[in-house]
């Protein structure tokens, strides 16, 4: 239950620290002196983890593939009978369904908007943090930590309350502006507005992680280099582009990649915002798969959509992994 659920639920990838100079990476203590006298022990130690991961991730993944070539419905679930094989029918049905393409389009659009906002705002706030007086920085850090620690479910409830049509503070505040009457305005009638509110929860929840990670990366930019560039006549943007960004680039890329993965899988925010029954126009890929499986009781359709989602994301996942390898997390 990682990515989609919450930013807190998902282990944030540890902020990788860029090796400053080309300091030689100390070789991992590879072979212990005298070779490997007890080669069985490590396997025994990782065996429980492998069994557990295999049971909860591996097997269902295989099962997903199998089910997506079958036609599993409620009768098979309760009767315990083997569902009929249908070959690629689920996939051709889904790929031939214009609704699927709309959902995919909506998912990509929502992801791009959220990632852009998260990374843009996150980077701006991180840069701002460097220039603040200490007391403002501490205050801001406190707010970031509080937002970070907020469970997704609670955060979503608050934003639902803030945007409530009758009793929400957003409406009553907007109505105070002369000429505007937002009293009783329902933000969710129009999906564009609704997704703006949902996007706000997503971005608000993701910003603390991005800011803290990027701020940590920014502290590694050598001050002298910045000053030297300034003396050479570089403007603020020039310094950022030529000195600051190259240093934080690996961290930035990694956080951006993670954001893509998380925002592509946004589920809980929409599900909770719409009181467990999201309207079809609020469905992104995760919800679409869920509602096909559990509301329409076509489990195979649901798994086929989930499988397509995994395939769509696997390119990003590979990129992420390569970034990790480059920064030396997996040696």
């Amino acid at each position, binding site marked *: 239950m*990682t990515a*989609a*659920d919450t930013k*807190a639920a998902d*282990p944030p990838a*540890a*902020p*990788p*620290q860029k090796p400053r100079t080309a300091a030689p990476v100390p070789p*991992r203590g590879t072979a212990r002196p005298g070779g*490997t006298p007890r080669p069985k*022990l*490590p*396997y025994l*130690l*990782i065996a429980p983890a492998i069994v*557990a*991961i295999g049971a*909860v*991730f591996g*097997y*269902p*993944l295989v*099962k*997903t593939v199998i089910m997506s070539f079958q036609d*599993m419905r409620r009768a098979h*679930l309760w009767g315990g009978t083997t569902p009929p094989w249908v070959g690629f029918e689920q996939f051709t049905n889904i790929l031939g369904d214009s609704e699927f393409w709309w959902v995919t389009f909506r998912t990509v659009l929502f992801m791009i908007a959220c990632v852009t906002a998260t990374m843009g705002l996150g980077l701006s*706030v991180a840069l701002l943090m460097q*220039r603040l*007086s200490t007391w*403002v920085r501490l205050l*801001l850090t406190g*707010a970031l930590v509080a937002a970070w*620690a907020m*469970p*997704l*479910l*609670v955060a979503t409830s608050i*934003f*639902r*309350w803030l945007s*409530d049509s009758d*009793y929400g*503070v957003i409406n*009553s*505040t907007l109505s105070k502006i002369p000429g505007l009457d937002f009293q009783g305005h329902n933000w969710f009638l129009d999906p564009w507005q609704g997704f703006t509110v949902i996007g706000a929860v997503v971005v608000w929840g993701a910003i603390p992680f991005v800011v803290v990670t990027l701020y940590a990366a920014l502290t590694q930019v050598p001050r002298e280099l910045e000053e030297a560039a300034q003396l050479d006549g570089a403007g603020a943007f020039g310094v950022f582009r030529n000195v600051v960004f190259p240093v934080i680039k690996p961290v930035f890329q990694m956080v951006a990649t993670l954001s893509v993965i998380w925002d592509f899988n946004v589920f809980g925010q929409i*599900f909770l915002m719409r*009181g*467990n029954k999201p309207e079809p126009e609020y469905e992104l890929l995760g*919800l679409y*798969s869920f509602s096909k499986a559990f509301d329409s009781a076509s*489990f195979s359709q649901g*798994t086929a959509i989930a499988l397509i*989602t*995994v395939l769509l*994301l696997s390119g990003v*996942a590979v990129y992420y*992994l390569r970034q*990790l390898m480059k920064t030396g997390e*997996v040696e």
Partner: protein
Amino acid sequence: MRPDRKKHRLVYNVLGLGVFVVMAFPVYWLLVSAFRPNHEIRSYDQTLWPSSVTLDNFARAVDAPNFWTAIQSSLIICGASVAGAMLIGTIAAFAIGRFDFYGRKPFMTVLILVQLLPPTAMLIPIYVQLNGMGALNEYWGVIVVYLVSVLPFTTWMIRGFVINVPRELEEAAMVDGCTRMGAFWRVIFPLVAPGLAAASIFALITAWNEYLFAYILLQDNDKYTLNVWLMNFTTDRGTDYGALMAASVLIAIPVVVFFMIVQKKMAAGLTSGAVKG
């Protein structure tokens, strides 16, 4: 140059305070709404400050059906899954942190990759499988799912602490007559204890906040975890926001307290896990 800088600093500080307000406002609103009298919550003109403070909302939250069974469910499920994940994760972390063996790198790659799988992709087959085993609506089904969900990260994090412990300490213990496992329990274990604490709390927060699997896999009202129970306040007739906010505060308290206690340790854990190859 100097007065110019000062002016800049002022502008930045104002901007910073603006960001602070935006980030902190939802938290403030949660707290204020939880203590607000009901007639103010159901008001068309929301005020930023409550006129008076009341505990009515908390009373309604605690009196709601199944509050206590939900606490019990959350404690059982989270406690068991975190304990299991810590045990399995620690020994696996020891293996990949201390031994060089064939298959170590693929195992570590798997640890990272499984975290990228969308949970909804896992949900359907897990539901179908647990149903086939007659394990729907049983605690252990959710426990196993939570355990494995947090396992990759806890393993990864603990590994960072294990490789920070100098190998020589262990070797010295072995020279002094300890077995390898003995050296582990007597030398390494105490040294990685802060890391274990941080990892366990991270796992606890994750499990404590999860609701999707609990919502789908548990079906009886008296087995719901706190997060699923929280949905009681949203009905077709409307939402009892006062009680919902109060209940959210109650549920968030343990998380926030844990977060504050271990925040420093966690930060150290994250970086050491990342830096040491």
